[in-house]
């Protein structure tokens, strides 16, 4: 079943600098889409459009449409704050809030009016378990999240997103600052999460895209060069530019 459809989508920042041009792709439910591409290729911009984080920027313009379950996310019928609850986001650097581990995970649910210790306890445990962090922190939920290691902090950020029970999870180079072991743990968590969520992961690491994604997309200078099944893209890419990138001749 189709979860997200991006149709003829274009986006320009203030001053008319075009970040995305005529993007067409769709993401199925319970699928992981890996978005690859060098810097300035527009991949993070697309992610930030999908949960309307770009709303805060002045002077932007866009074309085409993005639908979530068939509804245009930029139309008036979708409230951006509600959209962001349904479409969670994990950033490239882990950003734990300066609070306890527990309060970090409970932050989202509290924003949306969840009250009551028992309910919050459940959500916190659920989030941390899903992000494969529970066993490491269950005895020190009250300590500051800033004391966790980088890899743990990033899984905490995933847990924080999951505590809202989103439908889609966007990850913007979630492993860019992490060591291989931390990266492996996050990839493990992702493959577990696939059964429940739709995931879009932006990565600079082509090997990571090959490992975790079902479908892959290659962006270059705001253009979607190639999009298809990961296996196909990594074995028989249709576009020479994709071939150059994944084989390491460029990028």
């Amino acid at each position, binding site marked *: 079943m189709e979860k997200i459809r991006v149709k003829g989508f274009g986006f320009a920042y203030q001053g008319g600098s075009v970040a995305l041009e005529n993007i067409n792709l769709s993401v199925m439910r319970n699928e992981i889409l890996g978005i690859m591409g060098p810097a300035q290729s527009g991949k993070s911009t697309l992610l930030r459009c999908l949960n309307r*984080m770009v709303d805060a920027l002045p002077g932007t313009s866009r074309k085409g449409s993005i639908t979530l379950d068939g509804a245009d996310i930029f139309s008036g019928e979708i409230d951006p704050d509600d959209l962001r609850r349904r479409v969670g986001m994990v950033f490239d650097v882990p950003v734990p*809030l*300066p609070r306890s581990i527990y309060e970090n995970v409970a932050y989202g649910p509290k924003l949306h009016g969840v009250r009551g210790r028992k309910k919050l306890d459940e959500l916190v445990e659920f989030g941390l378990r899903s992000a494969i962090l529970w066993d490491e922190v269950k005895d020190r939920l009250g300590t500051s999240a800033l004391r966790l290691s980088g890899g743990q902090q990033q899984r905490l950020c995933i847990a*924080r997103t999951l505590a809202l029970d989103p439908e889609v999870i966007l990850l913007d180079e979630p492993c860019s600052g992490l060591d291989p072991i931390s990266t492996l743990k996050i990839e493990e968590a992702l493959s577990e999460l696939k059964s429940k969520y739709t995931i879009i992961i932006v990565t600079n690491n082509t090997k990571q895209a090959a490992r975790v994604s079902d479908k892959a997309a290659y962006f270059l200078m705001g253009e979607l060069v190639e999009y298809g099944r990961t296996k196909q893209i990594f074995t028989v890419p249709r576009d020479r530019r994709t071939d150059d990138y994944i084989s390491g001749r460029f990028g």
Partner: protein
Amino acid sequence: MIRLDPALSQKLVRWVLVSLTALTVSILVFIITYVLLKGLPVLGWEFLSTGAVDAGRGGGIFPFIVSTVFITVVALAIATPLGVGTAIYLTEYTRETAATRVVRFAAECLAGIPSIILGLFGFITFVLFLKLGWSILSGGLTLAIMVLPTIIRTSEEAIIAVPQNRRDVSTSLGGTRWQTVTRVVLPGALPGIVTGIMLSVGRCIGETAAVIFTAGSALGTPTSIFASGRTLAVHFYILATETDAFGMAYGTAAALIIAILTINTLAYWMMHRIMRKYS
């Protein structure tokens, strides 16, 4: 051209900087010790707990402590919400435009107005026009105007210093702008905001010109915000200029200095605790 040996010039610079620092500190230490040496003999429980006798030549400063606290509390109760609110608006709710620059410029100008002129303004506006008379309220309102720029600027700086990515996290979790402000921005900016408030407390306690015009110099203990009251600084000024009771004046000065030092120490301690809690 004489070329100094690099090692020697490093030493020289270090020595100059150390001396400058030592000079700065010693001025502060000198003033504080001088006032305390002169004032402490007068400063006792009786001095702190009784009213003035013979226009302050005898007795104590209790009513003036009360007036000072009242006026400071009134001033900050007004200036804090106004200043922090303005700072939140300027930083979180609007983009940098001509209008925000005008607001900022106006605040800077307000900061540059001599306090005696603010006192005159307060006298005309609050005491005469609004018929509040010489009162704690008139004085507090005038001081609120005086410290407003400080509170706006320190709050703005503290708010800007909160990392943008924390706001992004809150927004990405579906937080509204106001939720993000109250749950992420303000807690992060709190130490800076508290510092601004404490600086303002110090200025309110020490201010003379603006309050002598607006709160008057009544000797009694004010019982409401509509009563006139004499602050410690005003009392010190009157003792020093209109009487020969210099001992009492130094006693008052010592009380003022001790109050300000205590407030600063408390502020630092509080900030330290808040920072530890949030990081």
